[in-house]
């Protein structure tokens, strides 16, 4: 039943490795971009706040598929931006990461913002009374506590991101979903087996992430 795995025709592990790489690069990128966005949304400068709000509302309501296809058709094919990728494969991968960061950053931002709200007002007041600036209050007092409070929501974002990397298949990045599509077409006699293999792959990717980060979230939670 699973003999299509032995034929050597399909590189299932290789495809999942691309999925993992997409996830890792996009996770780091969207954590940075999301933190910057959250910083803007809570900053004292009205213009930055409205930019953050507008960005989050616009991007969150756009399908990720549109963002990634837009990166490929719009940025790359129409405007000729290749993000330093030499080959079609490299460029596609980088464009997918860019789209994923743009999209996931908004969810990281919203998670962080709700974490900032869990920090008691008194702490920030005390910090301000000591003469710390906005930037110091944010980076020394509030964000460290906010990050610890939002590990569980961020784990959800990370798991959603892992699943969302499959959207890269729409611009031909050779990750798990694209290989699954190809295998479903070629191995029609083994539809359920193919599905089982890829489903298992994703359960194996997301389940440990959820368990591990759930455990971490409980360990580091600020007890109040």
């Amino acid at each position, binding site marked *: 039943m699973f003999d299509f795995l032995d034929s050597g025709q399909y590189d299932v592990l290789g495809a999942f490795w691309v999925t993992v790489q997409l996830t890792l690069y996009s996770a780091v990128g969207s954590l940075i971009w999301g933190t910057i966005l959250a910083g803007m949304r*809570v900053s*004292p*400068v009205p*213009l*930055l706040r409205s930019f953050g709000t507008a960005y989050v*509302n616009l991007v969150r*309501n*756009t*399908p*990720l*598929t*549109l963002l990634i*296809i837009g990166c490929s*058709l*719009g940025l790359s*094919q*129409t*405007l*000729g*931006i290749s993000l330093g990728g030499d080959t079609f494969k490299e460029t596609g991968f980088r464009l997918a990461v860019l789209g994923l960061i743009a999209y*996931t950053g908004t*969810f990281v931002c*919203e998670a962080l913002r*709700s974490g*900032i709200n869990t*920090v008691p*007002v008194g702490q920030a007041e005390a910090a*301000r009374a000591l003469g710390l600036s*906005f930037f110091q209050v*944010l980076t020394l007092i509030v964000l460290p506590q906010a990050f610890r409070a939002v590990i*569980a*929501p961020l*784990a*959800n*974002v990370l*798991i*959603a*991101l892992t*699943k*969302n990397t*499959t*959207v890269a298949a*729409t611009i031909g990045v050779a990750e*798990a*979903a694209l290989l*699954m*599509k190809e295998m*479903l077409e070629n191995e029609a006699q083994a*539809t359920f087996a193919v*599905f089982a293999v*890829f*489903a298992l792959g*994703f*359960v194996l990717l997301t*389940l440990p*992430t*959820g*368990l591990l*980060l*759930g455990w971490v979230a409980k360990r580091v939670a600020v007890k109040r």
Partner: protein
Amino acid sequence: MTSVLYDTPGPKAKARNWIYSGIFVVLFGLVLWWALSLMGEKGQLDADKWSPFVTDSQVWTTYLLPGLAETLKAGALAMVIALPLGALLGIGRLSDHAWVRGPVGAWVEFFRAIPVLMLMLFGNALMAPRFLDVPSDTRPFWAVVTGLVLYNSAVIGEIVRAGVLSLPRGQTDAAKAIGMRKGQTMFYVLIPQAVTAMLPALVSQLVVILKDTALGGALLGFAELLSSNRQISANYSNTIPSLVVIALIYIVVNFALTTFASQLEGRLRKSKKSTGAVLGTDEIDDPVPGANTAAGA
């Protein structure tokens, strides 16, 4: 206006804010100028690339509106099927009997852990002549609906479970005290309140479903809103303008839904009739293995 993080700005802070605003405007302007000049270079800013959306009603009647209709149709149908299914799954997970709770729990966690795109591809394979033999012109539509239903019924199952669990414990106690059986408690007392409590979460799930239909257009040949971009840009060679217009349509529809969901949430939180249990749009989280309901593709 005060915040946790900063005081009402004094004269010095105000001056500083102006400086920061200035720096931001300059940076943003530079990026915008670069993007626009690049677009201008490639002819994407020419009036005739954008004017069809205003002057040529055919763009709307032939491509955009039918695409939007397909998107809404698939989304609505998926929601209508996934709701009762999700309610059953949610109730099943709360069952007293381990032989119900276990398999239903496994089902829900399994379908939540798998990308919706893979479920659509699987649905597409199931529609093939080998199995269900759905005619090839409607196959993409049903494949998309199948994928959406499998995924979202699991997510809605979690929402229902969270909705029931969010009710005050006294509700169950009171129902028991007047002699209701477990099933009666569930159907007469808990579920009606839970449905009210989770309405906002359900409405915002609709946004996720609508966004996910775009996947079917990209990989399965489903003629939804996003895929109308291909035909428009083939006719008018205006890739970027058509993508922008399509994005705006999605944003308007989804923003309307999101706003409705949060207004609903506000109304329910304020109304004195409810028990006060309201499931917000971002409150469903169960990190193991977890699917952020708002973060769909």
